[in-house]
């Protein structure tokens, strides 16, 4: 009797399992380059959420070179007609992929979840191709931060700068006191990060848009640009000579240890301070890069979704899209990564002061028209143009080229890349 009952329940259970897997469960294969500690943990949360709904997650992590290898993998897989379910692609590159006709239309999920209401239009515009959602935003990073170690400033009797003139005075004192004023890593993307912070700070958001978003020759080769380039090169005097090739987190740790006074870096640097057990306000200070208060350079990570033939894979894909913008993931992921949620309606309790300030600034900058996409992080221009700007910036920074020559070269190099 008992045995029979057991067998029956088993049979029902098995049937149920078979039934449920065949109708709902699918697999998502996700190409990403979030392999480091905090990031990987955050991705694991998404994996867990999907698995709770019965879907499975096939991880396709490709680290290195800020996604350089991942992009190669993605292109070859697209060529093979075998793209993954989702891939970490952001900014204007989303449009390039959509133009190839490979991306899935996410409008049904978006409509059901009301993305248009939850997510600001600055963000949704990037995620849409010809009015249809083809990508899901994950988070918002602010780029133009300056991270300071106040104890170094105190020891050098210097003031934390808010203008570039103050910066130079402070940097001189810090250098004289035997510290490294600016912790810096000489990699093309880090150079570009500092460069764009200088441009938006010194020349303003409107100029930034003309020069580095619309790439107007008149703005690229202009007195403002030459001035910004000179300021950018001035910073080099206050970095140590071992900077080339240094990873950004190694530079951050110089600030943490008190070897260096400040670093210009996006808000992901916070994770390093947190991991080292440092408290904001006392152990370290985060303020906007000089003269850039009120402006907001943003970087939005996102996943593009490829068309799926299989019904169950589509279901899994839709579930993934829904979960990414779900409250749970948005909260946990962004707390881990140091960024802010891309949608509204997230409880603020678990975010720290820096993140809360970033949220307010995001809203304020959006209202004032000073919210600008980051060129250095692939939000402003196509990868080809971004690469061209990188080449000029890095050549200018690492050679004897004058600011005037660099400004002129921007125009020709960008024209050749278009």
């Amino acid at each position, binding site marked *: 009797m008992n045995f029979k009952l057991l067998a029956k329940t088993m049979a029902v259970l098995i049937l149920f399992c078979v039934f449920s897997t065949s109708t709902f469960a699918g697999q998502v294969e996700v190409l990403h380059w979030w*392999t480091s500690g905090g990031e990987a943990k955050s991705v694991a949360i998404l994996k867990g959420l999907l698995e709770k709904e019965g879907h499975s997650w096939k991880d*396709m992590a490709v680290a290195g070179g800020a996604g350089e290898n991942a992009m*190669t993998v993605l292109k070859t897989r697209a*060529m*093979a007609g075998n793209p993954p379910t989702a891939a970490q692609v952001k900014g204007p590159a989303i449009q390039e992929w959509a133009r190839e006709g490979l991306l899935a239309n996410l409008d049904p999920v978006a409509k059901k979840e009301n993305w248009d209401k939850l997510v600001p239009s600055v963000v949704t515009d990037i995620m849409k191709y010809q009015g249809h959602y083809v990508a899901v935003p994950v988070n918002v990073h602010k780029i133009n931060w300056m991270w300071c170690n106040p104890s170094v400033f105190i020891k050098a009797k210097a003031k934390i700068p808010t203008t570039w003139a103050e910066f130079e005075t402070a940097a001189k004192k810090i250098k004289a006191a035997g510290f490294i004023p600016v912790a810096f890593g000489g990699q093309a993307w880090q150079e570009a990060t500092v460069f764009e912070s200088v441009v938006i700070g010194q020349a303003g958001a409107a100029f930034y848009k003309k020069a580095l978003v619309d790439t107007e020759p008149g703005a690229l080769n202009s007195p403002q640009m030459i001035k910004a380039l000179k300021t950018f090169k001035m910073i080099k005097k206050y970095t140590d000579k071992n900077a080339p090739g240094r990873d*950004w987190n190694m530079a951050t740790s110089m600030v943490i240890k008190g070897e260096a006074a400040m670093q210009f870096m996006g808000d992901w640097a916070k994770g*390093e301070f947190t*991991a080292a057990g440092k408290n904001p306000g006392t152990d370290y200070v985060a303020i906007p890069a000089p003269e850039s208060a009120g402006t907001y350079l943003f970087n939005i990570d996102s996943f593009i979704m490829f068309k799926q033939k299989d019904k169950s894979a589509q279901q899994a894909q839709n579930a993934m899209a829904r979960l990414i913008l779900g409250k749970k993931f948005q909260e946990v992921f962004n707390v881990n990564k140091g960024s802010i949620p891309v949608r509204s309606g997230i409880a603020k309790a678990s975010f720290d002061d820096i993140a809360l300030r970033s949220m307010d600034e995001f809203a304020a900058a959006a209202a004032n028209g000073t919210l600008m996409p980051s060129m250095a992080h692939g939000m402003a221009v196509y990868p080809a143009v971004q690469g061209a700007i990188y080449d000029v910036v890095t050549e200018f920074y690492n050679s004897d080229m004058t600011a005037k020559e660099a400004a002129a070269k921007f125009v020709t190099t960008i024209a050749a890349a278009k």
Partner: protein
Amino acid sequence: MNSEYFSNDYQKTPFMLFFRVAVYAVLIIAAIYFLIPLVIMIFTSVKTMNDIRTGNLISFPRQFSLEAWKSAWDTACIGVTCNGIKGYFWNSVKITVPAVSISTIIGAANGYVFSKWKFYGSEVFFSILLLGCFIPFQIILLPMAKMLGMAGLAQTLPGLVLVHIVYGLAFTTLFFRNFYVTIPQELVKAARIDGAGFFRIFFKIMLPVSIPIFVVSIIWQTTQIWNDFLFGVVFSSGDTQPITVALNNLVNTSTGVKKYNVDMAAAIIAALPTMAVYIVAGKYFLRGLTAGSVKG
């Protein structure tokens, strides 16, 4: 050639004594230069993180610890899974073994033809084969991907094995051809007069003397394929990725504290099979080269 053939007069002069001391000195200095990186790797892999932070690069470990090795093999996180590099290690074995054996066998047969059964155009074809391997591999990624996609082999283990075989053939063929050239043509002629055919000569005359060149070919191919990153990252996916890809993911973390000891332990584990091949087969390797390289 060994200098024992030089007469004793040479050995006894003061010049010769000085010469021998100098030779040993140069060789030992060179050996130190070659060993330093390995020593640094091994030292670092058995240090604790605290030791690494406070000591310098070449200092002897103050605390001997195998934690980093265990972690690298078993628990280090790569992407969202934290099972170390052991799974990827076996993937690499599954890729390397078939790719090396097949490309070596085909190379042996090709080399046999190009040296002993030349036909009209065979020399030209051989040159074409050699030149082809100078195309930068990066550029063939896209057409290769398309081809694999059409064959239904995209992102599969057999697909990756096929890629390795195809691009290894030029070298294996070159090795075997150069080796077989040194075997007198008369031997083949005599065998043919005795009625031996193409395959019989290959199996009975050529193969038995080919062990040294097999070793060369296997060592070369194993090194190339085991250490390959580009094809591995592009033509595999998730759970079929080879160890170099996992190592790259492990080493290239961009946040958190960099665990140099785990990185180094993982790097050594990744290099162990090829190093073992070199050490075990090193002697045959030289013998194979001796036999094969004399005539080019």
